[in-house]
């Protein structure tokens, strides 16, 4: 209870109310700014929704399943972009989740105390490098490496699968997935680490007392309890991967097609918006691009809401357990 609560009680004399006028003005001022954050979220949704009306009325739900993207003939379908965004994000998760969990386990359970904070700081710095710089590095350093080493290697051992066949440009779905993985590792590992640190020590001590090794303690006492929160962390990472724009645009090749091969170029939802909005001089073209933006907004919003709820609920549960 705040120390001044008696001043804010129901019964106040006139003098006190006058004395408090400044207080209520200040409180309402800050309230207005807090409200503006809510208003902003609604406004973003409203603006995107109203500007994409034209395209929504024209194509309806077929927008999501239409495979053609043909501005000249005014046919717009989002499927290749949804495919590109979802596939590149899945590749990113496949690479990033095991590595991030390894990092989180190392930083929360295994590392020497002295190394803990400099190492987590270095992983956090990964998140601080601007996306366009990753794109630059990806285009001139990572893509040649993928073309000359990784793709021939994958083809030689997994070439019987349709995913690892085709021309080796370096630029393509695989490059997009890898650069996304690099960019979401900090998110997933930082949140998972936090969640693991929130597991009460009594859990660990109990497992150790039963003679468990460190890995067994992590497995039975930590991971089991932190499961929900880790799932939330992965969703947060996925949300970031789905919306990432610049780095992916620079390495994925930007061709609206659906191909099984990961070596082929692809196109993402954020990518098509960023690279085509300037050519979109007809109303319908622009409206279709904004509808893709609206879809992306709704998807990432859902991801984030769900993920935050999971992480929040788990943290609250542990806070209860600790007290």
């Amino acid at each position, binding site marked *: 209870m705040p120390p001044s609560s008696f001043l804010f009680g129901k019964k106040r004399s006139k003098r006190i109310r006058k004395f408090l006028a400044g207080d209520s003005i200040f409180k309402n001022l800050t309230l207005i700014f807090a409200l503006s954050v809510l208003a902003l979220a609604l406004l973003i949704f409203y603006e995107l929704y109203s500007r994409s009306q034209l395209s929504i009325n024209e194509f309806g739900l077929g927008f999501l399943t239409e495979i053609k993207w043909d501005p000249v003939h005014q046919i717009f379908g989002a499927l290749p972009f949804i495919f590109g965004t979802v596939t590149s994000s899945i590749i990113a998760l496949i690479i990033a989740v095991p590595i991030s969990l*390894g990092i989180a*386990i190392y930083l929360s359970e295994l590392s020497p105390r002295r190394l803990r904070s400099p190492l987590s700081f270095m992983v956090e710095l990964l998140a601080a490098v601007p996306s366009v710089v990753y794109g630059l590095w990806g285009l001139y350093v990572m893509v040649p490496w993928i073309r000359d080493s990784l793709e021939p290697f994958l083809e030689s051992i997994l070439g019987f699968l349709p995913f690892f066949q085709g021309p080796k440009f370096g630029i393509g779905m695989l490059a997009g997935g890898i650069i996304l993985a690099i960019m979401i590792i900090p998110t997933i590992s930082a949140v998972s680490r936090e969640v693991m640190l929130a597991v009460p020590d009594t859990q660990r001590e109990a497992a150790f007392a039963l003679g468990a090794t460190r*890995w067994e303690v992590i497995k039975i006492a930590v991971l089991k309890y932190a499961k929900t929160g880790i799932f939330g962390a992965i969703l947060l990472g996925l949300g970031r991967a789905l919306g990432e724009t610049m780095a992916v645009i620079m390495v994925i090749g930007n061709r609206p097609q659906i191909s099984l091969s990961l070596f082929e170029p692809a196109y993402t939802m954020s990518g098509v918006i960023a690279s085509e909005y300037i050519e979109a001089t007809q109303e319908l073209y622009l409206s279709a691009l904004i509808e893709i933006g609206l879809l992306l907004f709704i998807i990432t919003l859902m991801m984030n809401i769900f993920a935050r709820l999971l992480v929040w609920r788990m943290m609250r549960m542990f806070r209860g357990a600790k007290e």
Partner: protein
Amino acid sequence: MIAKRITRRKIVDKLIASLALLSVIIAIIPLVGVIVFVTSKGLSAINLEFFISLPKPPDEIGGGIGNAIQGTLILIGLASMVGIPIGVLSGIYLAEFGDNKFGSLVRFIADVLSGVPSIIMGIFVYVAVVLTTRSFSALSGGIALGIMMIPVIMRTTEESVKLVPNSIREASMALGIRRWKTIVFVVLSTAKSGIITGIMLSIARIAGETAPLLFTAFGSDLWATGLNQPISALPLVIYKYAISPYANWQAQAWGAAFILVSIVLILNIVVRFMARGRYRR
């Protein structure tokens, strides 16, 4: 038998521990790779002319990114004018009056907003400001970046205001000072360094944003002349030069990336040391 099982368990334990360490190393490789390449390729592109002159067409040698550095500074200034007041005041609301359902809702929305992709903020401002005013402008770029600063500043302000011990508030109010004056002059001055840390962190985060600027600030080859004109920025120049086919533009992209990464990393490291000092006390 039992001894065998124990050794197996110990081996698994060691294996997992080394896998975990390996993942830390794998994650740090790209960070080191980016820093090494940006530094080695970037430094060779940098000289005095690079900092102070305008870009030149690709077939001419020389030229610089002076206007992009100027543009980035102007955009950060504009964004701060949007993001700092809204972020700090709503953060104060959350810390001082936000211990209720509405406070939790605002907190939650702010967290969710910070996870919305930056390109969405770009389209939003493009639709709401650029299409309405019919021109790309520095101002719209500043608004887009400013919106992205709000959640970070808000949450760090809330955290640092909450860290101020209640005894300080009580002491001030016992002297008959009103609550709002207590907050503005006593609580805020105690929480100052934390709030400044949050502001710097949010600047570090937006300084490298590219996607929202494509739709708003747009980029320019000239010095900035007015806030209603398109304006250049470091990330925009890096993008434009990186995807261009000209060797000397590509070299300049590395130079610009070196400057941008230096700014962002230095801000992050400074924030780190400021935060550490605060928690020790």
